C-alpha cells in the first residue's frame, strides 16, 4: 500500500493530477469509504485493502467535471464500468488519470461477522497479505481463509486484466471459481411456483432505500424515473409485493445491455437481496439470443438493446 501512496504523492506533487479519488480509513477496520484527496498531506488517511470493494468509476462523472485531472484507483472489474461510462459520454476521459490497482478479490464483512463478533482489528487483508486473515475480537483472535470471505461477485471474477488504465500498480489475481450463470440456471430449473416464492421472499425484504440505484455505475441518469413524484414507482415504502417487483424489474431493465455485472448492487444492499440475479438473467438472455456481449469491454461496441438484426427471435419463443 505504501508504494501506491508514494506514487499518488508523486503525481500530486508534480502537478500531473489535481486530486486523487481513492478510499480513506473508516471508523471501523472494515469499512473504508470513497474519498477525494486534494493534497499529499491528506493522503495519510489513504487506504487500500481487502475491504475496498467500492467501485469508484461512478464518482468520476462528477470528478471529471472539476478543474484539472483526477487520479482514480480502479480495480480490474471497475474498469469495465469506466469504459461503459466513456461509451455513454458520462465521463471526460481527458480529465481522468486511471491507476489500475491490483486486486486479489474483495472481502465480504458479513461473512466474517458470522463467526467473529466484536471485531477490533483485522490484519492480512492487504494486496500482498497472507492467505489467512487475522481478526482480533474482544473475545479473542480468529483466523479465516481469505478465499472463504470473498464477496459473491469475486467468485465469478471477470479476470485480472484492466480494460483501461494509464498505469497499473500491484499484481491481480483471477479469483473465479464458479460458473457465472450457475445461480441463474439453478433458478431457471425450478418450477414457476418455486421461482415466484423465491423472488417474493427475497424482494419483500426491500425497504426501498435506493442504495442499489445510487451505487450502480450504469444508473447515472441526471433525472431518474424513480424520483418522479407523479409516478407509480416513486421513492417510498412499498405498498404491496407488486411494487417492489416492479421497481427491481424496471431498474434491471434500464441497465440491461449496459450492466457490466460489477455486483455493487448486491454488495450494498442492507437487506442482502441477491439483486445481481436480475442483471445476470438479462446478461444471460442477451448472450443467448443476441451473441455474447460484455458491457464495458470495448468502449466502441454497440449495446445489444440499441441494435437489432432482421433475424432476431420472436418474444416468447425459447431459442
Amino acid at each position, binding site marked *: 500500500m505504501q508504494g501506491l501512496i508514494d506514487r499518488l504523492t508523486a503525481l500530486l506533487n508534480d502537478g500531473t493530477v489535481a486530486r486523487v479519488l481513492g478510499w480513506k480509513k473508516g471508523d471501523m477496520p472494515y469499512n473504508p469509504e470513497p474519498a477525494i484527496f486534494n493534497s499529499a498531506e491528506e493522503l495519510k488517511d489513504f487506504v487500500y485493502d481487502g475491504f475496498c470493494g467500492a467501485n469508484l468509476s461512478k464518482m468520476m462523472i462528477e470528478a471529471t467535471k472539476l478543474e484539472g485531472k483526477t487520479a482514480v484507483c480502479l480495480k480490474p472489474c471497475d474498469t469495465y464500468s469506466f469504459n461503459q461510462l466513456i461509451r455513454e459520454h458520462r465521463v471526460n476521459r481527458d480529465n481522468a488519470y486511471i491507476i489500475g490497482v491490483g486486486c486479489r478479490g474483495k472481502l465480504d464483512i458479513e461473512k466474517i461477522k458470522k463467526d467473529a463478533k466484536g471485531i477490533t482489528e483485522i490484519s492480512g487483508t492487504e494486496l500482498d497479505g497472507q492467505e489467512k486473515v487475522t481478526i482480533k475480537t474482544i473475545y479473542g483472535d480468529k483466523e479465516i481463509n481469505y478465499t472463504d470471505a470473498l464477496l459473491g461477485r469475486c467468485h465469478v471474477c471477470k479476470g485480472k486484466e484492466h480494460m483501461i488504465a494509464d498505469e497499473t500498480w500491484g499484481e491481480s489475481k483471477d479469483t473465479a471459481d464458479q460458473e457465472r450463470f450457475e445461480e441463474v440456471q439453478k433458478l431457471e430449473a425450478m418450477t414457476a411456483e418455486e421461482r415466484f416464492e*423465491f423472488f417474493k421472499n427475497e424482494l419483500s425484504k426491500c425497504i426501498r432505500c435506493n442504495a442499489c440505484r445510487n451505487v450502480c455505475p450504469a444508473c447515472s441518469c441526471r433525472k431518474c424515473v424513480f424520483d418522479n413524484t407523479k409516478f*407509480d414507482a416513486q421513492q417510498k415504502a412499498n405498498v404491496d409485493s407488486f*411494487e417492489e417487483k*416492479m421497481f427491481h*424489474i424496471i431498474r*434491471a*431493465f434500464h441497465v440491461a445491455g449496459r450492466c457490466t455485472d460489477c455486483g455493487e448492487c448486491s454488495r450494498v444492499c442492507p437487506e442482502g437481496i441477491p439483486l445481481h440475479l436480475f442483471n445476470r438473467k438479462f446478461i444471460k438472455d442477451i448472450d443467448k439470443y443476441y451473441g455474447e456481449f460484455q458491457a464495458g469491454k470495448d468502449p466502441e461496441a454497440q449495446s445489444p438493446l440499441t441494435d*437489432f438484426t*432482421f433475424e432476431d*427471435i420472436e418474444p416468447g419463443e425459447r431459442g
Partner: protein
Amino acid sequence: MSVNENGEFRPLIVAFCCNWCSYAGADLAGSSRLSYPADVKIIRVPCSGRVNPMFILRAFERGADGVIICGCHPGDCHYSTGNYYARRRMTLLFSMLDYIGVENGRTRVEWCSAAEGAKFSKTMNEFCEKIASLGKNVRLGDLRCKD
C-alpha cells in the same frame, strides 16, 4: 378482471396497438364484421417501439389479466425500425417475467398489418381464451389495491 351476471370469469386484456398497422387492422376487423371479445381494451400507440416495459407492468398492476402488443410486421414499420427494437425489448422482458415466476402466457406480441383484420380478430379470440383458461391474474396482482 370482472365477473358477468352468470358468475363467469371475464378477463381484462390490454392491447397496445400501433397506429399504422394493428390499429388499422382492428378497424378493418370491425368494418368486415369480424368479432373479437369486448374484454380487449385497445390502447393506441404511435409504434410498438413506444411501448415502455413500464406500461406492461403498470397495466398488470392496475388489474389487467393479460397484455398483448400488436405492431407492424418486421420490415414494415412506419418508422422503419421501431418494431425491431420492440422485439428485442419484449423478448427480454417476457423472459424476465417468466424468470420471476409469472405465467408466460399472459404476455404476447403479435405482428398484424392493416390488411389483416381477420388475423387481428383471430389473435384476440385466441388470446382471450388463453387468458380465460389461465384465470385471474393472481401473481402480479395478488396484493394490488382493490377498487
